[in-house]
């Protein structure tokens, strides 16, 4: 019926907006709420046009109170809605932490399944945009450490659409982390036939390689792809796995890759100590120990509060730091 339209470049921001729009159009239970999401369309314009199309009740500006927003969304979900909450920036989700940890993550379990919370919490996260303090945190470690939550993050335009649709369709609460420095990244993408809803929980091999595996997600995927290109000059053929979902974790895809390459580096912006990489390295090692030629290494943000804009380039995992880590994978031992 629909004429096939060729894929055109679209930004991740556009794909996210489109996902929200389609979800709202498909299901009247989907409601968006948050600070500035209505008239303004959000500070990143992800909710642009939704209030105009669906009314301010379906895309509602709230008072400035994150615990109140998330708490109200819990009540809305209890009544059968599918709220999509926007937290304005990563660090401004912290005031809602109690609602998240004590209610959002626990309500289904508490009630033996009687009160599921089909709730999506969109959080723009990560740095690299020159944001001042509190605007560049990578807080996924907190969410990973909270059973009852799904934690998902796209790295491509297509996944932004597919994963957000999947998050909204999920009957469980999903923390949906949007890599804010990729908002304006472009990809060929066909908005007339958007990518199918991605199942949550599947990693994907973004680049095949045989020397070592880079395990990464969100904003660091592009950096790893760049590193993999650069690594060719050093004679390394790197595989890049985009985790896409931190919870559930796709051990299968990850371990298949690491078993093949025998070496792995986890790359993320979040802090190293107590960060996501610890879990990832530990579980990969538990499962692939005898396939490993070297310990799984981590390239991550330093264990410091996120730096001011002028210093962030020193903090963020970059190509050189990734290649240095690859170089430390004990290649001598092999030959």
């Amino acid at each position, binding site marked *: 019926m629909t004429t096939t339209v060729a894929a055109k470049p679209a930004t991740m921001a556009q794909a996210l907006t489109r996902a929200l729009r389609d979800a709202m159009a498909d299901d009247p239970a989907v409601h968006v709420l948050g600070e500035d999401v209505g008239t303004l369309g959000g500070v990143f314009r992800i909710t642009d046009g939704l209030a105009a199309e669906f009314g301010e009740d379906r895309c509602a500006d709230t008072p400035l109170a994150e615990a109140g927003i998330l708490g109200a969304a819990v009540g809305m979900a209890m009544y059968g809605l599918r709220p999509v909450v926007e937290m304005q920036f990563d660090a401004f989700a912290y005031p809602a932490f109690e609602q998240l940890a004590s*209610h959002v993550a626990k309500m289904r379990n508490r009630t033996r399944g009687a009160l599921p919370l089909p709730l999506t919490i969109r959080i723009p996260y990560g740095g690299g945009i020159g944001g001042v303090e509190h605007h560049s945190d990578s807080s996924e470690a907190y969410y990973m450490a909270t059973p009852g939550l799904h934690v998902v993050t796209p790295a491509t335009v297509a996944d932004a659409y597919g994963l957000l649709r999947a998050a909204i369709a999920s009957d469980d609460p999903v923390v949906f982390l949007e890599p804010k420095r990729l908002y304006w990244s472009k990809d060929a993408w066909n908005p007339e036939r958007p990518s199918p809803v991605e199942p949550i929980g599947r990693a994907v091999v973004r680049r095949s390689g045989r020397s070592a595996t880079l395990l990464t997600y969100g904003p660091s995927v592009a950096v790893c792809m760049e590193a993999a290109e650069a690594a060719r000059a050093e004679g390394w053929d790197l595989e890049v796995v985009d985790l896409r979902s931190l919870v559930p974790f796709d051990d299968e895809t990850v371990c298949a890759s690491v078993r093949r390459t025998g070496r792995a580096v986890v790359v993320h912006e979040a802090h190293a100590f107590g960060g996501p990489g610890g879990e990832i390295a530990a579980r990969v090692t538990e499962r692939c120990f005898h396939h490993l030629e070297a310990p799984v290494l981590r390239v991550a943000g330093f264990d410091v509060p996120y730096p001011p804009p002028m210093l962030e380039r020193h903090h963020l995992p970059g190509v050189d730091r990734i290649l240095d880590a690859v170089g430390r994978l004990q290649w001598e031992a092999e030959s």
Partner: protein
Amino acid sequence: MTVMEQRGAYRPTPPPAWQPRTDPAPLLPDAEPHRVLGTDAAAGADPALLLRLHAELVKGRRYNAQATALTKQGRLAVYPSSTGQEACEIAAALVLGERDWLFPSYRDTLAVIARGVDPVEALTLLRGDWHTGYDPREHRVAPLSTPLATQLPHAVGLAHAARLQGDDVVALAMVGDGGTSEGDFHEALNFAAVWQAPVVFLVQNNGFAISVPLAKQTAAPSLAHKAVGYGMPGRLVDGNDAVAVHEVLADAVRHARAGGGPTLVEALTYRVDAHTNADDATRYRGDEEVETWRRHDPIALLEEELTRRGLLTEDAVRTAREDAETMAADLRARMNEDARLDPMDLFAHVYAEPTPHLREQRDLLRAELAAEAEAVEAAQAAETTETAVITEGPR
């Protein structure tokens, strides 16, 4: 660049929107809490309501006593008694219609069962076999909320969602005096007022947050005075006067249902028992204060009026007492049965579908349980000749 340079352009006038957006006067609580019992207004109270309240209060008090007794027998992990506060508990449940929702705080088991939840299911949390023992949707009763005040935004969201869908639903949310200090209280009331959500907030001011007396909790003229700061009416009521509490809450529910928005009700009452069976109230308060409040007992207040009107017949007294005893006996009996437990439930409801790593952990536990069962069997077999010791606890 300075203003002076552009002076011609300026015609200072008072800016717009300076009038109060809402008239504060009607939002302020009266100086005296609302009372019915012991006043002339009592004569107008419906006899059927008085008797209904009485029966429920008597049963409620009996429930408190029975539940406290069950803690001593090790059948409940802990019990926060609402003795002395039965009027609030019962009225909160009775004012609600079929489709309305109740959002109780951790002390409000009485309100939960007065709403129709099975008394044993209402105790699941405190017994320790699961967290919430009833289906919240079946009874329109949210889980008893342990983190204080955190359930208030839920009530607002639910009421708002219902209203957006054109449903005629009111949410009544309960919180203690201590809970009013939490940020979630503030955020919930503000959202409710801005959204004009059909919510009634009932603060049971029972004088204490565990050991902390009201004077260390707030310096406000009353907790009901907080309402004006959100733009909703604040009402003060004698929380031990069941008829007055019922009246004020019923008014607030009607107001909310009619689209009038939320109300904050402060009920002045007293926690006659210690915080829980595990608490020692003598550490922080004197008997005298407790005695003063015992003389303002909700049941006694109601019985005075019933007696005055000749409604407290032998029959009524007997029925109320018998009903209470029947409930207590049933509760005792059922709580003395061991709870049915399935350790695999740990994994069943974390997500709609267990994640792969939860499935691994589930398999681990299943294997452990099988090994345990085998060991028990082996031990039982061996018992014919010698005594086996089965270890308990996380071994």
